[in-house]
């Protein structure tokens, strides 16, 4: 196995064996969405109107929840030093860690999303676009969040700091993710929004590894 895939496989194996962490993210996601009808009332038309936005905001928060653990345990047990010293370029390691994070949190969120769409009375025509938008948007969250996680290593209350650093950067993904679904439901077609989400993902994949690797080197000093 190549070092790159070994790193992805290790993180997935750790997430599966410590299953509580991943489960918690999904349960949090579902709970947040379930709270909304209780808060704003059971009127089906209102719920249908806010469904895409609620699902996206809940997905953002759920992704944040698991983000601060991404490098924390490696930092604490000394693994980060060895990773920084291993021959595999740190930028690729950052991508591998982001990929593992997406596979263990982003992917389950996508799978749970249609169910919550039904729950919020979202029209069925929007499901396909919602899934496509989440599939393009959540990897960006893992990448951008990874930079925040690397930057906040060693800080006290790193979880809070991480949210403050990263949530503003999630705004473009949120805007275009929600408007993709809205556009498809109003019959305008979501191609433009999906292309922008794809562009954001490509931009994040190209830029975040450099920032993340620099932050990790700093943290390993």
């Amino acid at each position, binding site marked *: 196995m190549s070092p790159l895939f070994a790193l992805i496989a290790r993180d997935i194996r750790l997430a599966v064996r410590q299953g509580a962490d991943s489960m918690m993210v999904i349960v949090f996601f579902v709970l947040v969405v379930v709270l909304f009808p209780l808060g704003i009332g059971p009127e089906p038309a209102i719920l249908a109107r806010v469904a895409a936005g609620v699902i996206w905001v809940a997905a953002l928060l759920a992704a944040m929840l698991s983000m601060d653990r991404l490098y924390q345990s490696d930092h604490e*047990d000394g693994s980060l*030093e060895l*990773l920084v010293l*291993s021959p595999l370029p740190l930028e690729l390691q950052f991508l591998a860690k982001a990929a593992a994070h997406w596979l263990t949190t982003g992917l389950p969120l996508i799978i749970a999303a249609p169910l919550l769409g039904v729950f919020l009375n979202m029209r069925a025509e929007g499901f396909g676009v919602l899934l496509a938008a989440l599939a393009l948007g959540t990897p960006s969250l893992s990448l951008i969040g990874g930079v925040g996680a690397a930057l906040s290593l060693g800080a006290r209350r790193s979880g809070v700091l991480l949210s403050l650093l990263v949530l503003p950067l999630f705004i473009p993904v949120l805007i275009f993710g929600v408007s993709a679904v809205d556009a498809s439901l109003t019959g305008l077609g979501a191609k433009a929004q999906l292309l922008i989400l794809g562009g954001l993902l490509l931009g994040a994949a190209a830029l975040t590894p450099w920032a993340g690797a620099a932050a990790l080197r700093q943290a390993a000093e």
Partner: protein
Amino acid sequence: MGQFSGSGLGSYRGQRMVFRGLDFAVGGGDLLHLVGPNGSGKSTLLRVMAGLLPVIEGQISWDGAPVAQDRDGHRARLIYLGHADAIKGALSVFENLAFWCTMAGGGDAAAGLARFNLAPLADLPARFLSAGQRRRLNLARLAAIPAALWLLDEPAASLDTASEQVLEDEITRHRAAGGLVVMASHGRDPSDGTVLELDQYAANMADFGDAVL
């Protein structure tokens, strides 16, 4: 196998210069002991040698070529063993070592475990290991992964006498094969190898002014 040297090295931790004007040279088959009281910069020097800390003053070189010009090559030739054991409790003993072998680009995890008498524990989740066993699992990287330069920060911490002997045998074997070892060891009287006293390079406060970046 190579010549590892540094000249005029200076480094700081926090705001404090820990040493400056430090020279060292290690050749194939050499063992360099770093000795000095707590805080004299043994760990800092090892981390500078590994490339974890930037070189603030001076330069380190391998075979005469500055390491700063070939960081990837330098990382590929060294094994660094720090205070933390880099062990994941949820992975088995074998999986832990096999992962580091793969990351290093090759190695024989089974042989490494056997060398440090961990083979019977190979399938045990690593969270059940004692402190000494964790240290042995970390040390097993030395036997499993081929590398020219070993940078060991108090490797014998929490080892029993039998395991200390295995470690010494491994160091002897490595040196016989032309490998280089730099080891920080406080308190213990080094029986062989050369000794570098870090105390004599302690930065005095008069030098401090121009050392602040």
